[in-house]
Each structure stands twice: as structure tokens, then as C-alpha cells.
């Protein structure tokens, strides 16, 4: 029996983008009932882990034009320039508002909000709260959202399906994790803000919850996933755990050094010029891999790494600017950055790709919006600049909320019995999966194999002959994931069932990554194909669209919006 609930707008995901969207809806019209459906309590959302800061023009020596150009260049000219212009214009307003909502930003001596340097940014435009901007942003948004009575939360509800009637989205099916009950939650607009899917890789900064759920929901409903081949490796993760060590370490003056103690970004030509450690992430991750290949890595229990040296910054600066980095290094790798360098290596961090959205955060499906990492509005193109993503959550979360409010004004309720039937069908699917003893495949085994295929096929450096097997292997896993064996038959808080549903999502998302990567025979941004080492604007200046098809993903293309900045060689 499926219970039916009705709201005006549903937001799936309670992180930075989702909460910003919810507040936008509540502020636009407090009479609208806005549901926030999240598989975790909002303050557990992965926005919480962001460290370095959020970008917006703030200083007299900066301009919107400069932020725009930096972002386009960082994107390796795959960013849509209309979207980038809108983003940089909105960014200062959104961050100022976050400040007024109480975010404890770090300050200059005169009491104004301080900004720091970040990779690929010409000047200091990254607003920060020591090194915990994600934590503070998430908690500020969550706490601010609590004053709006029109925001109704469905905490610990896992969305399993989008309800679609007549080509328009009409709601979602959600599994109440607490009770095991299936709910049909209906509304005339749905905003997906579930974040990325880094857990398809084995070595990632992402938390356990980042399984690409929202991407898979939209994909299976027929909406394209765009530019999925572009996966960002952050240069500095802790070996073993993959825990993020923020780029702010370099923004504050930290150095990357090889086993010889050389600042290799200065001593060798990796294309980052005088930016050195403040080059963009794709280039620095490649440089680290090259150093290790050249025999200048440091050997460790979890593979070779390079050193991130902060010792020259002094205890006082580290304590005030980078206290979380100190805590993480001391707790998780037994290193005190005041006195010792931190071992680091490139780690999967962020998906530039996602649900194909436009400047309004809208998708090809009427009523369906997406914002934040789950979306690909083509702000980030082939490589995102650090500190643009939190601002992206705010700018496009707000836009999605506002657009959804406009959209539902002219919308009827949809055919409720059709939607209920769809929900019942999905309830049956989930019921059959729960405690499915007859299966032959183990969740942790499939997840391990999936991780291995992606890591080997779609790493920092890719080759045709590594990507092709990954495509085949993931396709095979798509078959095997339908034969999972589950042991837990309980209804209440059955995390094995959730893990199974997440794994099914991960396989779909992983397949779009591998298939999209294989077809792009050039090197651009984070997609570095060693068989085709150069960018090829002639043939590949397009967005990759990947559509679901029962027979296997189908690839299409979409034009890049240019107009202001002509593509040029990307050299720093």
C-alpha cells in the first residue's frame, strides 16, 4: 500500500543547493508547500565536507569579467559562456546574502569578509570560514531554512523513482528508511539537488552517500546526463582514506614537493607557469602523476605520493587559517603539518558532468530542475575551478527554486491514479529486492569490481585501451546488479536495501562516465586521453549527452555556447 502525499514543489536532496532552493521557494511564496526529501538529515549532506571557500568577486582589483574569463579558461573552453556570465553576476549577491544569514566568514582587519587565493583564479576572490566553508554554509542554510513553516522535511527518505505523466514530472516515489514504507509524494515541479557520485570510484574525497542517485533518477526517466567523462581529480587527498586536504593550503602559500624536495611545479614545465601551486586542479593532478611516473614520488603503504609542505607557514597562520587541515592530518595520517609535510595524491573529487540543465536550472523534462553537483549547467565545462562549486549551489539552487515557483503557476495536478500505479509498481520492485535471498551477487563485491573498472579505465590519464574494457565491464555489471543477494529482510532502517538501491544507481552513473569518456578522442580539461594528447576544437568542441537505453547508453551532442571569449590555447 502506497501512501500519497501532496506538495507544490519537491526538492530531492537537502545539501547546499537543495536548501537554497527551498528557501527561494519559501521566500517567493510562503503559501506554497515545499517538500525537502533527503536520504540523510540535511546537516549530514556532503556539502558539509567542503573546506576551502566559495568564489565571488569582492575586491576592488577584481571584476566580473575576470571571474568569467578565469572560469571559461579553467573549463578548457567547454563552459557555456552565457551561464558563466550569469553565475559571476549572481555570485556576490548570493554570498553576501549567506553572510547576512549568519555564515561565520573569516574577516579582514576592517571587519569586511576576507578572501583568499585559489587555483586558477587571477586574484583573491574566495570567501572562506577558516577551512570549513562547506560545514558553515550547510549549517547556516539548514538553520535559516527552519524558520520557514512552508518547508516540510522528509528526512531519511530515499527517492527511488521520478513520477512522470504525459512527459511532465509529477512527483517522486520515496522509501521511508525509518519505517520501510513506500510513499508517493506528488507535486508539479521537482528539483534534484542530490550532489555527485564520486563513490563510483574507489579512491575519492566523497562521503559514503555520494552514489549519484539524482543523476540516475533523471537518466532513467529519459533526461540526458551531460559531459559525464569529465571527472575532477583533486590534487591533494590523503593516501589510503582519500580525505580531502583543501586547495586553501596552497592558496595560503603551501608548496608541493617531490621525493627530491623539489617544487616540481616551479622546477619543471607543467603548463601552470608562474601560478605554480595555484594552477588549476586538472593540471596539478597530472603533474603529480608525472612526477610519480618519473620516479620522483615518495613510496608509502598506500602507493606513491608527493608532499604538501606547509611547515614554512608557521603555527599561528596554520591554526587560524587551516585548523581543520591540522585536525585531519593529525587524526587520519598521524602527521603534524606544523612540523612535517602532508603526504598527498590525486583523488576523485567532483563530477563536472551531470543532469543536462540550462541557464534556468531547467531540464528537457517540463517541471524538472536540477542544481549543484548533480546538474551540469555547463558552468564548469571540462574542469571546475576550486571554490566555484559552493557558489554554484547557491546561484543555481536559488534559480531552480524561483523557476519552479513560476512553472507550477500554470500547472494542473496530473493524473493521480496513473501516478499511484507507477508508485505501486516501484513499491513492488523494492519489496522484491528487500531480503532477496535468491540472488547470487554480493553488494560489496559488485561495488569493488565497479570501482576497479572505473579507476583503471577513467583515471587522471586515460587510454582507448583502458577505457574500452571499462565500458564492457560496467555493462556486464549492469546485468549482474539485477541479481543481488540480500540478507536483511527487516523493514525498519534496512541499510542493506539502501546500499542495493544505491549500487544500482552507481552502475548506471558509472556506465555513462565510461561510455562518454571512450567517445571523446581528444584531451580537454580533466579528460586526458593519452592516445589523443591535444584539444581538438574542430571535432570535439561539444557537450556529450548520454541517454538511457535498455540496450546500453546512447550518445548525442550539444553545442557549446560561446560568444564572449574565443577558445584559445590554455596556458598559464
Amino acid at each position, binding site marked *: 500500500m502506497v501512501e500519497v502525499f501532496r506538495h507544490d514543489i519537491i526538492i530531492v536532496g537537502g545539501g547546499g543547493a537543495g536548501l537554497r532552493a527551498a528557501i527561494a521557494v519559501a521566500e517567493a511564496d510562503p503559501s506554497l508547500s515545499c517538500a525537502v526529501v533527503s536520504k540523510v538529515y540535511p546537516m549530514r549532506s556532503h556539502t558539509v565536507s567542503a573546506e576551502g571557500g566559495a568564489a565571488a568577486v569582492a575586491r576592488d582589483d577584481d571584476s566580473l569579467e575576470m571571474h568569467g574569463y578565469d572560469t571559461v579558461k579553467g573549463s578548457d573552453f567547454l563552459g557555456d559562456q552565457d551561464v558563466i556570465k550569469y553565475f559571476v553576476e549572481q555570485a556576490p549577491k548570493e554570498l553576501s546574502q549567506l553572510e547576512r544569514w549568519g555564515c561565520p566568514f573569516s574577516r579582514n582587519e576592517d571587519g569586511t569578509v576576507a578572501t583568499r587565493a585559489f587555483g586558477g583564479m587571477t586574484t583573491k576572490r574566495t570567501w572562506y570560514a577558516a577551512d570549513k566553508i562547506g560545514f558553515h554554509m550547510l549549517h547556516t542554510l539548514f538553520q535559516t531554512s527552519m524558520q520557514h513553516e512552508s518547508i516540510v522535511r522528509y*528526512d531519511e527518505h530515499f527517492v527511488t523513482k521520478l513520477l512522470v505523466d504525459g512527459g511532465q514530472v509529477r512527483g517522486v516515489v520515496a522509501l521511508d528508511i525509518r519505517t520501510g514504507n513506500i510513499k508517493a509524494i506528488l507535486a508539479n515541479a521537482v528539483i534534484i539537488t542530490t550532489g555527485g557520485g564520486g563513490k563510483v570510484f574507489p579512491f575519492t574525497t566523497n562521503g559514503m552517500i555520494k552514489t549519484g542517485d539524482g543523476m540516475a533518477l533523471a537518466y532513467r526517466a529519459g533526461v540526458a546526463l551531460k559531459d559525464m567523462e569529465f571527472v575532477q581529480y583533486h590534487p591533494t587527498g590523503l593516501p589510503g582514506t582519500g580525505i580531502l586536504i583543501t586547495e586553501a593550503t596552497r592558496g595560503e602559500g603551501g608548496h608541493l614537493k617531490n621525493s627530491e624536495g623539489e617544487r616540481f611545479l616551479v622546477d619543471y614545465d607543467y603548463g601552470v607557469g608562474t601560478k605554480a601551486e595555484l594552477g588549476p586542479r586538472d593540471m596539478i593532478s597530472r603533474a603529480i602523476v608525472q612526477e610519480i611516473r618519473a620516479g620522483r614520488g615518495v613510496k608509502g603503504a598506500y602507493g606513491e605520493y608527493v608532499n604538501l609542505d606547509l611547515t614554512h607557514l608557521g603555527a599561528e597562520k596554520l591554526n587560524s587559517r587551516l585548523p581543520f587541515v591540522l585536525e585531519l592530518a593529525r587524526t587520519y595520517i598521524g602527521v603534524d603539518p606544523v612540523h612535517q609535510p602532508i603526504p598527498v595524491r590525486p583523488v576523485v573529487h567532483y563530477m563536472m558532468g551531470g543532469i543536462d540543465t540550462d541557464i534556468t536550472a531547467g531540464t528537457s523534462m517540463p517541471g524538472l530542475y536540477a542544481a549543484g553537483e548533480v546538474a551540469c549547467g555547463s558552468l564548469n565545462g571540462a574542469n571546475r575551478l576550486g571554490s566555484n562549486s559552493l557558489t554554484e549551489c547557491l546561484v543555481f539552487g536559488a534559480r531552480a527554486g524561483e523557476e519552479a515557483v513560476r512553472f507550477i503557476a500554470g500547472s494542473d495536478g496530473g493524473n493521480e491514479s496513473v501516478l499511484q500505479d507507477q508508485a505501486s509498481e516501484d513499491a513492488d520492485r523494492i519489496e522484491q529486492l528487500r531480503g532477496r535471498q535468491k540472488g547470487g551477487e554480493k553488494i560489496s563485491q559488485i561495488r569493488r569490481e565497479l570501482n576497479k573498472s572505473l579507476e583503471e579505465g577513467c583515471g587522471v590519464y586515460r587510454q582507448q585501451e583502458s577505457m574500452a574494457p571499462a565500458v564492457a565491464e560496467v555493462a556486464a555489471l549492469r546485468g549482474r546488479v539485477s541479481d543481488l543477494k540480500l540478507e536483511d529482510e527487516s523493514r525498519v532502517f534496512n541499510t542493506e536495501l539502501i546500499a542495493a538501491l544505491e549500487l544500482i544507481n552507481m552502475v548506471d552513473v558509472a556506465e555513462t562516465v565510461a561510455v562518454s569518456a571512450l567517445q571523446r578522442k581528444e584531451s580537454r580539461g580533466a579528460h586526458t586521453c593519452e592516445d589523443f594528447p591535444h584539444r581538438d576544437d574542430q571535432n570535439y568542441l561539444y557537450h556529450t549527452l548520454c541517454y538511457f537505453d535498455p540496450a546500453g547508453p546512447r550518445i548525442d551532442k550539444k553545442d557549446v555556447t560561446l560568444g564572449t571569449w574565443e577558445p584559445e590555447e590554455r596556458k598559464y
Partner: protein
Amino acid sequence: MTTRRKFVVTRFDPDKDEVPKTQEYEIECQDDWKVLDAINFIKDEVDSTISHRWSCRMAVCGSCGMMVDGEPKLTCKTALDSYGDTVEIEPLANFPVVKDLVVELEGFMGKFQQVKPWIMNAKEEAEKKAASTMKEGTYRQSAEELMAFKQFSMCINCMLCYSACPVVSNEPDFLGPAAIALGHRYNMDTRDGGQDERNQIFREEGTVFSCSYANECSEVCPKGVDPAAAVNQAKFNAVIDWATGLVVSRPAPQGDE
């Protein structure tokens, strides 16, 4: 390097069990593991029916609080090598149990909302909102002003403090350390104008004056928030505010002309 350890884990399925029971698992543990790594290993490889919450594994999402050998711990931050051959894992004390190691958060979420944790009555809000540049659109705050509340803004809502608090264990409705610290955090923020409302809440029964100064909350806090200090400051401010209110709001004498 690995060490063999036995984990005694509390199991409870409300649909089957009247009372919680324990189950034992013996596994090889890597010496650099945190407690959470061991539980995840059991979940993935030994017994997939165990339920527990976790996500970030870097001590910031606040999901993975449990009792480890009888003490509330953030399991992703707690090194396994400081424990013996047998480690007891239980759900956080002072909370109703949902299943296995998962506790009920709804009561806590209600307390959280009760302190109105948002910027209220901001006087300059309207004019700031209209401004488009950072200089005009944001408040100024000195380093000292920031320091007055920053520490209390660091709470990750892991609820270890509720588990450790002797008052919570006797009076489940006690507002509790994290919620009071949060309300106090906003009271101490120069951008906020909601002190009167929150102090009124703090003067109600079951809030700051129920605290017995045990200081357990600050001792177990994995983020150095020091909720006990927040509770003490909040008590003081609530009293001062009340006393000042008496003086200021006393009706003016209505003498004859």
C-alpha cells in the same frame, strides 16, 4: 599490520526483538583503522544486516556517533588501537533505538528548532539586501566579535553530548547542550537581534537552569565546542537580560498632575 579483535555489537530489530541483544564478530583489523572502519568491514564482508549511520568519515558530518566500550564516540575519529581485544559497540545512550546502532533523532531535531537558530530582527537587513557589492551588502564583524561565537558554531550535531549528559538521562525533555550552545551562538552574533526571544526560551523550565554543571558534554565533544561554557554563558545572559528587563520595562509611575 593487523590485529584480531572481537566486536560485541548491540542488535535490535523492533519488528522481532522485545529487547536489544548482542552479537559477536571476530575480524582481522588493520592497525590504522578507526572504529568505524571495523564496523564497515563487518557490514560489507561479514554480516550485511547490521544497521548504522555514517557518511563523511572525516569527522564533520556527525552521523557516526556510537558508544564504544561504554563511552560516546565519533567512531570515524576514534582510533581502534587504543582499545583492547574485545570492543563493545552500542547505540548512543539516552536516545530511543530505531534499529541496531541507529538512534531516534526526532526529539533532538525538535530541540534544535526550539532555540530559533537563525538571524532574527536584523536591523540593517533591508538596506543591505538592496546593495549589490560586498562592501555594502554584508555586515562588518571584528575578529573579536567573530571569536565571541565562532567556537559555538562548530557543533556537528553528533549528539555525543546528549549521550554523556546526566541531566538528559533523567529528564529526556531537557533542551540539552548542543541546542543551548546553538541558541547561544546566535545570541552572541553581532548580526543578530533575537536575544530577547531566545533568552525568554532559556528562562523556561527544562532549559539552561536544568544544567547541573557536570561538564560531561564538553569532555566528550569531538570538535572542541565546549557546550558547557555556552550553557553557563547563556544562563548568565538570560538572568542579566531578565534583570535589565525588570528595570527597563517597569511601568512609569502614573502620578496625578
